[in-house]
């Protein structure tokens, strides 16, 4: 069988996946933004692995799916999970709280936000690994000029929880706010409300694996979902890559 892996990184999960797939007799081709072409040649593959949520990889996933190729994870869900202005609607369907957010031009934000609305967290519409995430403490810290709308999220004070799940198993780590998930973390037990939230998330999205970043609001003790992803690197979970690789290969017909 021919497998295409769409990825920004060829190490980590991708290396493990390639090794396992080739040992099982499959042919694996990896594509990053230096060699990706989104055209009908994607129909030559039996399976497309959508490792990255970057727009062009999503395009490739949609294209491959329309050509009848099995794509894992499902591209439309990847888009909804990964896009900042779509994820809250998905979370609401799963009964998971998300922070209040504001989305507007810098000018409208300067005029429309009150001093009491700060601090806010600025994020990119699509992003991962805390790239581009910054705390905005006041009007003065809003960008002066930009033709891009800004996505700003209510700052939720509390404990930051990085949650990975593979099927019905979840692992929870405490992490520092505004740093990449690859930075040192501390593994903790899985609270019941996290288990329940992951179950609902899996049911709504149909995802077999993924990650959820929660903040436990220290004012209300409520779990608030601040980020999600359809295909994490599973830092801090040894053997996860092998397990996920097996699940993905299980989609080959």
């Amino acid at each position, binding site marked *: 069988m021919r497998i295409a892996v769409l990825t920004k990184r060829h190490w980590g999960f991708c290396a493990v996946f390639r090794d396992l797939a080739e040992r099982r007799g499959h042919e694996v081709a990896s594509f990053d*933004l230096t060699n990706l072409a989104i055209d*009908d040649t994607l129909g030559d593959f039996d399976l497309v692995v959508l490792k990255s949520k970057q727009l062009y990889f999503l395009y490739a996933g*949609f294209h491959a799916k*329309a050509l009848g190729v099995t794509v894992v994870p499902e591209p439309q869900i990847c888009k909804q999970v990964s896009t900042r202005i779509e994820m*809250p609607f998905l979370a609401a369907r799963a009964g998971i709280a998300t922070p209040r957010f504001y989305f*507007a031009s810098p000018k409208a934000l300067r005029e*429309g936000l009150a001093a009491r609305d700060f601090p806010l967290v600025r994020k990119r519409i699509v992003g991962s690994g805390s790239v581009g995430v910054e705390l905005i403490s006041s009007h003065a810290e809003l960008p002066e000029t930009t033709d891009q709308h800004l996505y700003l999220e209510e700052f939720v004070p509390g404990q930051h929880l990085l949650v990975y799940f593979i099927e019905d198993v979840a692992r929870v780590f405490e992490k520092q706010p505004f740093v990449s998930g690859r930075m040192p973390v501390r593994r903790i037990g899985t609270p019941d409300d996290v288990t329940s939230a992951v179950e609902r998330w899996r049911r709504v999205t149909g995802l077999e694996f993924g990650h959820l970043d929660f903040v436990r609001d220290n004012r209300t003790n409520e779990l608030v979902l601040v980020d999600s992803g359809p295909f994490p690197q599973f830092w801090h979970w040894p053997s996860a890559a092998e397990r996920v690789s097996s699940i993905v290969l299980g989609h080959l017909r």
Partner: protein
Amino acid sequence: MKIGIIATAHEVPRIQSLLRYLEGKADVHLYVDEQGVVDSRSTAFDEQVIFTKGRGYALLTMARIAEASGIAVVNSAHSTWVATHRLLASIACREAGVRVPEFSVGTSAPDAFDKVIVKNIVDQNHLRFLDILPIVGGPRATIPPITTSEEAGSSELAPQYHFYQRFLRTEFEYKVYGFGERLLYYRQLPVLVNPDKMSTRVQIDEVPELKRAARAAMRATGLEIASLDFLEEDGELYLTDVNSTPNFNYIAEGAQIVGDYLLAIARDGGRQVETRRAPAPRRRT
């Protein structure tokens, strides 16, 4: 009756005719993408129907908030998003059996296309890079990096990707405006031949093949109001562009047609599009 219109500032002058037509017939509220703050906690709508005119992210977010409250949105956030991303619109239309020119997204034109037309990945034709696109080139044509969608992320390689479509040798361009089930047909010289498209545009009678293709394309993308561009090569019609924000002022009584469409939905209690028409047949499963 209450009708909401969510528009980008670029579209506001174009909807004045619609606002005038609706005056006295409905209570109309205009939301402008660039002027307000979308607040997930307090942005709310109480209209029976929302009309979206534009493609901005704030517009799409407001549309999603309205949809989540059960309000009919024309065009929906998803259909606008699909139409805006040229590749996705081409995929959806081809899958629905509509003939489209061969297409790809990449950093250079495919060898097999002979001659290509190069377009920006995301159709944001009111942005500043309109003047350098589209470009017609030969095999393996490359063009300089251009500003692209924020959704493409921060990779330095992202702006090097473009949408390539096989160039069609055509005498005429056909334009179909769709307002629900009502279609209007026009013919003009191709824009690449004569950029002043309106100077050669004439209304024509219904063309059965255009009707079938336009209906299929609108169902596949989910658009209720659209304009669709077709080119004819060797006797075959190809859908080359899908536009979710047609300028209805180019049509005689265009504002009235759009207004009546929205009024009918509002009068009907604002039923969602899924219940207003049957699901689209799909060519592949």
